[in-house]
C-alpha cells in the first residue's frame, strides 16, 4: 500500500466527495417532496388514483439506475424537440441529468416507503381525529403525515444511504464525483488499489456520519416514544 500517493490525492478525492454529497442531498430532498403526494395517492382507496403512481413506481424500481441515467443523458438527445427545446441547457449538463435521474429514481422508492408508513398508522388514531371534527385533509396534515413520517424515517435513512452508493453511477456520465474522481486519478497514477481503497473509505465515513445524523434526528423526533401504542 502506497500511503504517500493516497495522502497526495486526498484533496482531489475530497472535492469529489463534495460533488457526491451535492448530488445525494438534492436527490433525496427533492425526491422526498415529490414522493409525498405520490405516497398519499398510493395509499388511496380509489383504484385509479392508486394505480397511476404504481406504473411509475414499477418502472423505476424494476429497471437499473444506470439504464435510467443513460435514457436521460444520452437518450433524450435523440429527439429534436428536446434538443431545440428550452430545457436543453439543463438536459445537456451531466450534473443536472444525474440529479434529475436520481431524484426520479429515489422518488419511486420513497413513495413506497411512505405508502407503507401511511398504511401502518393505527386506524383508531385516524378515527379519533375524524371524531374530533377534523376534515380528511386536516387529519392527513395533522395526524397521519406526522405519524407516518416517524414510522417511515428509519426506512428513509436506508434509502439515503442507498442513494449515496447509487451516486457512484454518476461517474459513468463523465461527472467527477467520488468514484469518477478516483477513476481519473487512477488513469494518471496507475494505482487502482490505493485510490479505490481511499475512495471506499470516503464512502464509509460519509455513510457513518449520515447514519449518526439520522439517529440524532430519530431521537429529536422521538421516534421510539411513538412506537408505543
Amino acid at each position, binding site marked *: 500500500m502506497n500511503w504517500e500517493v493516497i495522502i497526495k490525492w486526498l484533496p482531489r478525492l475530497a472535492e469529489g466527495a463534495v460533488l457526491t454529497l451535492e448530488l445525494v442531498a438534492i436527490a433525496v430532498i427533492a425526491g422526498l417532496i415529490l414522493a409525498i403526494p405520490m405516497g398519499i395517492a398510493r395509499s388511496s382507496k380509489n383504484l385509479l388514483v392508486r394505480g397511476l403512481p404504481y406504473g411509475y413506481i414499477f418502472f423505476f424500481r424494476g429497471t437499473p439506475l444506470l439504464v435510467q441515467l443513460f*435514457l436521460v443523458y444520452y437518450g433524450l438527445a*435523440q429527439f429534436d424537440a428536446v434538443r431545440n427545446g428550452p430545457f436543453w441547457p439543463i438536459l445537456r449538463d451531466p450534473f443536472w441529468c444525474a440529479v434529475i435521474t436520481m431524484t426520479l429514481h429515489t422518488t419511486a422508492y420513497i413513495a413506497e416507503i411512505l405508502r407503507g408508513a401511511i398504511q401502518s398508522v393505527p386506524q383508531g388514531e385516524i378515527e379519533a381525529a375524524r371524531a374530533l371534527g377534523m376534515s380528511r385533509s386536516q387529519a392527513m396534515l395533522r395526524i397521519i403525515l406526522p405519524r407516518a413520517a416517524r414510522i417511515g424515517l428509519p426506512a428513509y435513512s436506508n434509502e439515503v444511504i442507498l442513494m449515496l452508493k447509487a451516486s457512484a453511477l454518476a461517474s459513468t456520465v463523465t461527472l467527477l464525483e467520488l468514484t469518477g474522481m478516483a477513476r481519473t486519478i487512477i488513469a494518471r497514477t496507475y494505482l*487502482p488499489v490505493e485510490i479505490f481503497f481511499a475512495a*471506499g473509505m470516503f*464512502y464509509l465515513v460519509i455513510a457513518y456520519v449520515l447514519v449518526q445524523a439520522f439517529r440524532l434526528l430519530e431521537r429529536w423526533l422521538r421516534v421510539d416514544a411513538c412506537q408505543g401504542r
Partner: protein
Amino acid sequence: MNFDLYGFGPALAAGTLMTIKLALSALVLGLVLGLLGALAKTSPYKPVQWLGGTYSTIVRGIPELLWVLLIYFGTVNMMRTLADVLGLESLELSPFAAGVIALGICFGAYATEVFRGAILAIPKGHREAGQALGMSKARIFWRLILPQMWRIALPGLGNLFMILMKDTALVSVIGLNEIMRRSQIAVTASKEPFTFFLVAAFIYLGLTIIAMTGMYFLEKRAGRGFSRSAA
C-alpha cells in the same frame, strides 16, 4: 422509432442471456458468502463474530460500482504475481469473473443480515431438541436450522436478488457483453440512444417480472404446511 431494432435483436438476446448467467452465478457465490457471514455473526467466538460484522458493514458501506471497478482493475497486479508464482504466461480476471466476484461479495453482505435474522428467528427449543436427541452441532445445522431458515429468509433473499439483477448493469462498465453494453454498441451504430436504452429497460422489467413470479412460487412452496398468518 424503429421496431426491427436495426438487426440488433439477436445481440440483445445474447446480452440478456449473459445478464442471466451473471446474476445466477453471483447469486450462488453470494448465498455461500451470506451463509458463512451469518454463521460467523451468530458464532459464540468473538473474533469470528467480529469478522462477520466487519465484512457486512464494510461491503454494505461502499458502492457496488466501486467494488466492480476495484475487483477488476485492482486485482491485475495480484494476478500477475500469481501468474509468476505458478509459472504461467499471463493470468487475468475476465470481466465476467470480476463481475461475479464483485456482485457476489455485495449480495453476500446483505444476505448475511437476512440469514442472521432467519437464524435468530428459529426458536431455541428446536436446537435444544436436536441436542437432546444427541445430534452433533453440524447435524443440527443441516437438518434443523437450515431447512427452516430457508422459509424465513426467502422473502428477503428475493428482494436482494431483484437488486442483484439490476446491479448486473454495472458490469457493463468493465466491458462485459451484457444487456447494457450490447445496447451501448447498438446506440453507437444506430444513433438512437433512447430507443435502445428503453428496450434495455423493458428487458430488465421483464426479467424482474419473471423473478417476481418465480419468487411467488418458491415462497408458496417453502410456506406449505404453514397457515397464511404464520407464514
